[in-house]
Structures are given as structure tokens and as C-alpha cells.
């Protein structure tokens, strides 16, 4: 399930790096206020003159720092804040404001360090607590932040900032009514205090949009206050991105830069969003403008760098179904047939299942460099993702992007393509948990690794009562409250879908998805599709879990005890004891198929006892349960071949390509077996892969290709490939014999 942990939609990524800033610090110098007023009203020239005058004045460093920041010279502001902090080693304010600069620049580690330093000077500073809560919210630590914000709001009820941050967190959690209420209360406070209402109007408009209301009146109100306030459109775009509505987001971002052409953040977001829509040229145009205004943004710089690598990729278009495969030139010849075939199977399967046909090409991008994929996805390297779906664009790691065996690229693609259908069939209204749950369910039911695969830590969470009610399952993805909850939530969502299929039938599961063809809630959708309340559903699901996982529930510690016992016995070469413990481990949780699972220990134990048939049986059971580790599969192939079971080995050989297609040694024997079993077209793919991988035995690969073409009835191509084989190796006896046979000159 490692794959599931990391395989997520882009939901929530952007708000984390581009959240609203609620900086209403009343302790900022009064000298700044006239400049702020001009800025807030959109009087750009006046505000720049005002800030410039302050920046050039003999005002304290802290004031000049604020002025430089407002002018956009972050480097000068940084130096001045540094000087202000050094000049006042016991003062909170320069550190707080300096930290806010870093917060605005998305450099959270530096902001956090400065806030921590300030906290040591005054742990009770209200402004500092607000800033820390905002940092927590931006770092996606919403659960803890909400509680803190409640206290801050109670402590200073006249301050709007805690309410504004709360509104955003409520919006993130999908509680739009509460978000509207918090934003409206903040707006009332700001208006009554005659402070700028723009942040509150943005928060309110976002909450209204998320609640399905038209935010135009709120937008108009903001623009009446400040006609150049592009941020309100950018905020609405982020709300659409939260809902994975990237086309709508693009429209808001376009409006943002129309009313405020130098809104570099909005331009950056527009560029990143155009990439989600598969529009590389549009992305580049926006990002280059953003870079011209803000060359310090890591997201802009990183994304432009990735765009610079695009000429290294090929884009293969195909129709019926429409697909566009973007693969790196160095591996496209090898990967393209496998990716295309699997994508075709997935599209056929999901079209039939979900009643939606792709209207434009589904774009599938594979990145051999994981950091390029990460930047393309989130603008920053170092994210723990394997694949992401943006509407009808799927981006993911290439098999070469990770060590062989680290992930199953075929399952990842299957998972992501399921998202394309569940998102599109509901115009992106499907909640996160259901889209992920259906993707996981499809991996298990129809994907290349059939079998319900569950990791022990998911069962631990279940035993500890940590699974969420279905109505709140999105929180497990959006606001994880404990380590590993996202992974647990993937599995729970998959199990919920599995339960619905088993208890109510697949039609009801699809009907539940289709409830989201209009705006609805989880309880309403469950009621309409399944005829029961979400609370009643939770009770039924709990009963299903108890029944399905009864062996685990009987003793939740038993699996690990038996796995350890099996491992210890294997080390002592006590094959029978290892066999007993491994078998019991399999019985306790047959869904556990990871690399330390009972199946593989059982196979090792039986091999140790020279009982190859039992080892084969264990490995076959492991595969049927969803096991896919390439070394385990290769071991199974070898054992089956030795036992004369080539027919059984063939699907295992084929399956290896969906994990490790770049392993050169697998293709030749697979090609041979495919030829022997009368599948020349599939054999041809294997020999072509060998040549694309620059096999060290190209003569044999050309001969294989020749034989495949001959078997497919392409005599002319067969002859050409035989000559290509002999061109490399003129004395290659099998190729000589094949050529002579083609010429009707059999061996004497």
C-alpha cells in the first residue's frame, strides 16, 4: 500500500502554497498607514510613491523594511528586517514581521524559526500567536490550528484575523456554512472598525463559491473598494482548484491578472494551472511574466525549468480512445506499447462502468526524473507522490523514476485513469474519498494487480477505532490527524466501495458516484443511492469489517507475532516451524501481500524444505491476493518453468512488464513464450522492447522480431529482420537457418 499512500490528487496542494494572507498587525508603524490605505484602495502609483519615500527616508529599519516589502523588493526588505532584529535583540516585533515576510514568500522553515525566536521573547504575544496559527494553516496543520484559533478569537473578540484563518480552515474541511459565517463575522468587524475589508470579502466569496452560491456581489463589493484587487479572483480560483475544476480556475485567474496585471502570484498560479490543463505554451507565457516580476518564486523557477525539458519528450497521439502519451525520448520506444495498451484497457473498462466517454484526448505524462514530476505537479520537488490526475491529464513517475520494485506503474496508471472517469462523470463534484475509494476499488477489482491488498497499519487503525464515519472520510485525506491517516483513508475508502459492491451491487456503487452529478452531501448521496442514512451505513460497514477481518480481530497482534516467528525460524533453517508460522500469518490477514508478507515467507520455507510445489502454490496465492514484487514474480516464473509450467508462467512474465518493463533480461524469454503460444504480435512488442533497450544481443532480438513477423504473416518484414540480424552477426546459425528457410533453401 506504499503506492496508495503516495498516490493522491492535487487537491489541497495549491492552497498550501498560496493561501490568503491575513496580516492585520496593528502594531505596524503608523507611518505606513497612509501608504497602506492607497494600496488597499488600488491607488498603485500613490502607494508606490508613499512607500518609496519611506524606504528612502531615515525612518527606522523596521519601517523601511515594511516599505521595501510593499514595493516588492524582498531582498532589501530581508536585509532591513535582519538589521532591525539585530538592533533590537529583545524585541518581538522585528522577528514577527521578518517571519511574516518569509511566510508571504512561502519559506515556512525560516518563518517558523523566526516565530520560535520571537516566542522565546514573549510567549503571550497575540500577534505572534495569530501568525503561528496562520503558518500552521498554510502548512496544512489545520486540526491543531482550529483549536488554537478558537482560543485566540475568544481572547480578542474584536480582532478579525482569527476568524479569517478559521474560515479558510473550515472551507478546507468542506464546512462551507461555517466558513461563510466566520468570514461574514470578520467582515462585520472590519467594516465596523473601518479597516480594509478585502481579506474578509475574499474569504466570504470563496466560501460562497464553495457552497454553490454566486459570489459576484461580494466580488463587486471588493472591486468597488479596490478596482485592482485581483486577489479576490485568485482566491476564487484556489477554491475551484480545491474542487479540481481547473478550467473554471483558469477563468478566475485570467480575471485576476486582468484587473491586476502585476499580480505575480496570480500569474504563477495561472501558469501552473495551465499545465494542469495540458497547455504548456499558455503555462510558459504566464510563468515568464510571473518570473519577470518575481524572480524569487521557487515554484515559478522550478516550473519554467521543467518546461525547458519538454523538448526531451515525445507526444504520441492515438484515437479510439483518444490518448496523448507524453514519454521521455530515451524510453518512449520501450514504454509506449505497454502504456498505451494498459490505458486502452482502462478506458474501455471505465467507460463501460461509469457511463462516460472521453471527449478529448486523455493526456498521460510519465517523468523519468521524479523531481520533474513533482515540480510539474506541485511546483516544488520533494513531494511523496507517484501519480496525479488533473481532470483529463494524468502525470506520474515513469518506471525509471524509481528503483525497480518501489512501485507498480501499471496500478498507478490504472488508479489515476479511474480518477479521470470519476471526476469527469461528476464534473469534478465527487468528494475526494469517493474518487480515491473508487480508484483503489478498481485497482483491486479490474486493475493489473487484482486482489484486495491491505497493509497491517490499516488494520491497526481499524482496531484502534480510528476509521472515520463515511460522512467525514474526506477529513482523513484533507486534514490528517495522525501519522499514516492518509494511507489508512485510501484503504478505508477502497473498502467502503468494496462493501457497497458486495452488499448492494456494482450498480449501486455507480449510482452513488452519479449522485454527484449535482451538488450534494455525503449523507444525501448515501441516502439517495443506497436508501439508508450515513449513520446506518457506518453501522453496516463496521459489521462488514468485523466479518471480513474476523481472524485479525480475534488477535490484532497475532500477524506480527507469526511473521516474526516465521522469520526467526527461517534464519534457523527450521523449515517446518517457518511454514507453520507463515501459514498462520497468511490466515490472519490474507490481504497483506507486501514484501514481508506470510506468502513470501511461506514460499521461502517450502523452498528451504525442497518442496517446490508448495512454494509455487504459496507464490501463486500471493499473486492472486495482489502481490506484485518483481523479485517474487521472477522467482515464481523460474519455479514454474523448472516444473514445466510455462503456460502458468506466461501471465506472470507478462505481468512483470507492468512493474519493471526496463529489466532487459525478461523480454527475450517472454518473447519466446509468446511466439510458442501463437501470440506473434505480443512477441513482436517484446523484441522491439529489447532493441529499444539496446540489448547486448541485438542479433537475437532481430531474429525474434523476424520470427514474430513471419508468424504474423508478414513475410517481407520477416526477411528484412532476418537480414538485420545477420548484418550484425553473419555467422548466427539460427538466423542463417531462418533466412534459408524463408528462401526455400532448407538445411541439408
Amino acid at each position, binding site marked *: 500500500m506504499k503506492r496508495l499512500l503516495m498516490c493522491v490528487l492535487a487537491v489541497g496542494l495549491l492552497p498550501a502554497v498560496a493561501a490568503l494572507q491575513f496580516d492585520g498587525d496593528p502594531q505596524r508603524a503608523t507611518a505606513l498607514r497612509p501608504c497602506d490605505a492607497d494600496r488597499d484602495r488600488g491607488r498603485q502609483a500613490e502607494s508606490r510613491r508613499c512607500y518609496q519615500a519611506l524606504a528612502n527616508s531615515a525612518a527606522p529599519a523596521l519601517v523601511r523594511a515594511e516599505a521595501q516589502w510593499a514595493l516588492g523588493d524582498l531582498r532589501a526588505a530581508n536585509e532591513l528586517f535582519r538589521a532591525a532584529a539585530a538592533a533590537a535583540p529583545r524585541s518581538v516585533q522585528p522577528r514577527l514581521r521578518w517571519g511574516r515576510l518569509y511566510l508571504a514568500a512561502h519559506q515556512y522553515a525560516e518563518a517558523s524559526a523566526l516565530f520560535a525566536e520571537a516566542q522565546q521573547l514573549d510567549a503571550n504575544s497575540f500577534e505572534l500567536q495569530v501568525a503561528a496559527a496562520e503558518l500552521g494553516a498554510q502548512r496544512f496543520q489545520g486540526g491543531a490550528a482550529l483549536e488554537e484559533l478558537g482560543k485566540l478569537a475568544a481572547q480578542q473578540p474584536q480582532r478579525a484575523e482569527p476568524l479569517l484563518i478559521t474560515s479558510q480552515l473550515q472551507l478546507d474541511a468542506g464546512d462551507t456554512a461555517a466558513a461563510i459565517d466566520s468570514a461574514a463575522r470578520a467582515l462585520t468587524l472590519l467594516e465596523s472598525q473601518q479597516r480594509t475589508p478585502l481579506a474578509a470579502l475574499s474569504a466570504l466569496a470563496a466560501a460562497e463559491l464553495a457552497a454553490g452560491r454566486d459570489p459576484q456581489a461580494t466580488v463587486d463589493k471588493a472591486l468597488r473598494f479596490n478596482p485592482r484587487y485581483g486577489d479576490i479572483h485568485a482566491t476564487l480560483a484556489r477554491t475551484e482548484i480545491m474542487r479540481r475544476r481547473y478550467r473554471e480556475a483558469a477563468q478566475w485567474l485570467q480575471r485576476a491578472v486582468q484587473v491586476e496585471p502585476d499580480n505575480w502570484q496570480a500569474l504563477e498560479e495561472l501558469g501552473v494551472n495551465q499545465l494542469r490543463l495540458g497547455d504548456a505554451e499558455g503555462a510558459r507565457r504566464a510563468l515568464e511574466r510571473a518570473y519577470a516580476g518575481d524572480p524569487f518564486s521557487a515554484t515559478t523557477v522550478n516550473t519554467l525549468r521543467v518546461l525547458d525539458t519538454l523538448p526531451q519528450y515525445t507526444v504520441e497521439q492515438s484515437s479510439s480512445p483518444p490518448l496523448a502519451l507524453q514519454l521521455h525520448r530515451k524510453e518512449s520506444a520501450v514504454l509506449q506499447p505497454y502504456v498505451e495498451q494498459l490505458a486502452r484497457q482502462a478506458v474501455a473498462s471505465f467507460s463501460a462502468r461509469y457511463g462516460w466517454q472521453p471527449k478529448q484526448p486523455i493526456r498521460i505524462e510519465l517523468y523519468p526524473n521524479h523531481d520533474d514530476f513533482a515540480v510539474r505537479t506541485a511546483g516544488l520537488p520533494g513531494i511523496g507522490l507517484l501519480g496525479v490526475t488533473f481532470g483529463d491529464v494524468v502525470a506520474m513517475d515513469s518506471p525509471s523514476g524509481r528503483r525497480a520494485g518501489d512501485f507498480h506503474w501499471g496500478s498507478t496508471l490504472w488508479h489515476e485513469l479511474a480518477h479521470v472517469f470519476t471526476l469527469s462523470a461528476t464534473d469534478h463534484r465527487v468528494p475526494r474519498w469517493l474518487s480515491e475509494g473508487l480508484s483503489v476499488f478498481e485497482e483491486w477489482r479490474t486493475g493489473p494487480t487484482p486482489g484486495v491488498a491491505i497493509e497491517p497499519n490499516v488494520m491497526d487503525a481499524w482496531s484502534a477505532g480510528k476509521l472515520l464515519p463515511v460522512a467525514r472520510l474526506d477529513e482523513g485525506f484533507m486534514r490528517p490527524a495522525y501519522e499514516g491517516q492518509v494511507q489508512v483513508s485510501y484503504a478505508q475508502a477502497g473498502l467502503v466501495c468494496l462493501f457497497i459492491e458486495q452488499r448492494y451491487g456494482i450498480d449501486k456503487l455507480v449510482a452513488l458516484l452519479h449522485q454527484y452529478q449535482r451538488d450534494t452531501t455525503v449523507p444525501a448521496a448515501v441516502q439517495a443511492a443506497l436508501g439508508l442514512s450515513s449513520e446506518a451505513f457506518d453501522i453496516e460497514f463496521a459489521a462488514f469489517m468485523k466479518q471480513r477481518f474476523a481472524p485479525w480481530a480475534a488477535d490484532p497482534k497475532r500477524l506480527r507475532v507469526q511473521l516474526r516467528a516465521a522469520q526467526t525460524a527461517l534464519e534457523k533453517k527450521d523449515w517446518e516451524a517457518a511454514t507453520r508460522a507463515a501459514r498462520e500469518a497468511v490466515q490472519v490477514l490474507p490481504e497483506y501481500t507486501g514484501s514481508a508478507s506470510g506468502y513470501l515467507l511461506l514460499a521461502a520455507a517450502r523452498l528451504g524444505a525442497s518442496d517446490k510445489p508448495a512454494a509455487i502454490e504459496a507464490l501463486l496465492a500471493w499473486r492472486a491476493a495482489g502481490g506484485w514484487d518483481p523479485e517474487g514474480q521472477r522467482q515464481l516464473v523460474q519455479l514454474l518453468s523448472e516444473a514445466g509450467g510455462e503456460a502458468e508462467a506466461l501471465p506472470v512474465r507478462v505481468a512483470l512488464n507492468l512493474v519493471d518493463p526496463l529489466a532487459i533480461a525478461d523480454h527475450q524469454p517472454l518473447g519466446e513464450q509468446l511466439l510458442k503460444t501463437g501470440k506473434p504480435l505480443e512477441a513482436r512488442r517484446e523484441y522491439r522492447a529489447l532493441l529499444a533497450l539496446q540489448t547486448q544481443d541485438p542479433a537475437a532480438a532481430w531474429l525474434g522480431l523476424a520470427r514474430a513477423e513471419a508468424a504474423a504473416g508478414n513475410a517481407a518484414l520477416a526477411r528484412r529482420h532476418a537480414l538485420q540480424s545477420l548484418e*550484425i552477426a553473419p555467422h548466427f546459425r539460427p538466423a542463417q537457418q531462418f533466412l534459408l528457410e524463408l528462401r526455400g533453401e532448407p538445411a541439408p
Partner: protein
Amino acid sequence: MCCLPAQAAVHVLVVSGLGGEAEYAKRFADQASHIAQASQSVAGDAQHVRLLSAEAATAAAVEQSLTSLAGTLRSGDQLIVVLIGHGSYDGSDYRYNLPGPDLTGARLVKLLDAFAPAVQQLVVVATSASGALAKPLQRAQRVVITATKSGAERNATRYASQWERALTTDAADRDKDGTVTAQEAHDFAERQVADAFKADAALATEHAQLVGDGASRIVVALLGAKALYAADAQLQVLRGEQQQVEARLDAARSRKDTMSEDAWYGALEPLLVEIAKLDQRIDAREAQLSTAGGAR
């Protein structure tokens, strides 16, 4: 497709240096032994293959062997030197770790330069830091292969084990003519080493290099039947005919760039068919000799 004159002699010196640890010592000794054994197929005479291993592999013994060979080999003869083990580089000279005093790179160059200029040399230095020797050893009529690209690549190398594989299996025989050339062996070993690092998801700590011309004309091993029955007159005639067709094939290859693809394969096919038919006769003769236990 090699090109030594029939009377040319091939002499091989294989040295296994200090292992440091028992595991390395055994590995180096085994590799050297297998390479020496495989080299007999090209040297013909077992006396032409010298193996220096373990305590016998001193710098003095290496010097003595090379000095003696320098006095023996004539123009047109071929010298193959394979050095296995650990090497080091101090920024100015390479040192081959041997029991007793190390053999320095400078001394090795001097010893090899003492051979007649027309003696074709292949020097394979499969040790760590061996890249430091590539330039000093460079000379006409000498192909130099080092396991590393510079003296700075100091980790124990994997190259020798793949060179051994290249000579002892048919995996490196890319053109499947039953002979393994230095170029084929190097291409194979280099790729295998690179793939092994890739499979381990490890940073490659060695990058082999080949310097000098003619590596594809130096045969380092003969495989299977090719190594047998060299003295059979009938086979010699057939192989002579085969060489003539191969010469025509080489001539045709030189014109490939001027031809369309169809024309090229049209021209190639009759030559390949001719070779195939000759090979059938050679195979038949070898089978006959094998059944009869014929002269080798």
C-alpha cells in the same frame, strides 16, 4: 573476423594482485585463473599463457615476465596483459598493489615500451584507480582498457568479473562468429557494470574506458568449435573461403551509406546466404571430426 597472420604468436600475461581481504584475494585469483584458461584458446600453446597469482605475483615476477616476453615477441605478434586487483593513485603515479613492493605505473609503461613497436599490445588494467594509466600507456599499436576513468575512482571495481564473463561465455560475442574481440569484451563488460550499478540504484563508482585503435581486431577468446580442429586441412580451406566472402562483405559495408535501405539489403542477402552455406559445410565437417575424434 580477426586478422592475425597465420604465423603470428599470441602471448598472454594475467596477474592477480593483492586482495587485502580473503574474499577479494580469492575472487581476484579465480578471475585471473579463468581468464588465463580462456586465453589459451587464442594463444593456442599453453606455454604462451602466463599466470601470476597470490605470492608469485610480485613486481619482480611481472617485470621478469614482461622483459622475457619483450625479447621473445616479434613484429606482428600479439601481447595481451591483464592486471586484476587493487590499484591506487597518489596524484602523480599509479601503483598496482602486489606482494612486496608495488608495481608503479611508470615502471609498467617502461616495461611495455620495451617491446618491438610492431608488436600489437592489449593492456587491460581492471583495478581501482586504473584510469590514471590510460594516458601514460597510450601508444601506437597498443589498445589500453582501464576499469575506471581516472585515478580518482578508487573503489574496488566490478570490471574484471565481467571481463572474465566475456571470455568464458558467449554473452559478449555480439556478432556470433565464435570469437570474442577486445572491443566486444569491453562493450559487454562496460554495459554489465553500468547495469549492475543501475540495478542496485547505486552511484556508479567506476567508468571503464578504452583507448587506442584496433580493439575489434584483437581476439581475446575463441568459443566452442572455433577453438577446436584448427589443424584440420579441410576446415582450413573452408575457413579460407569464408574469409574471402567476409572480405567482400566488409567491402560492401563500406558502401552502405551510399545505398538505399532496399538496395543495401538486396546486396547483403547473397553474401549472407553464401556465408550461411559455408557455415553449414564447416559445421558438417566439425561434426564429422567430432564423431571421429579427429585431430585438433
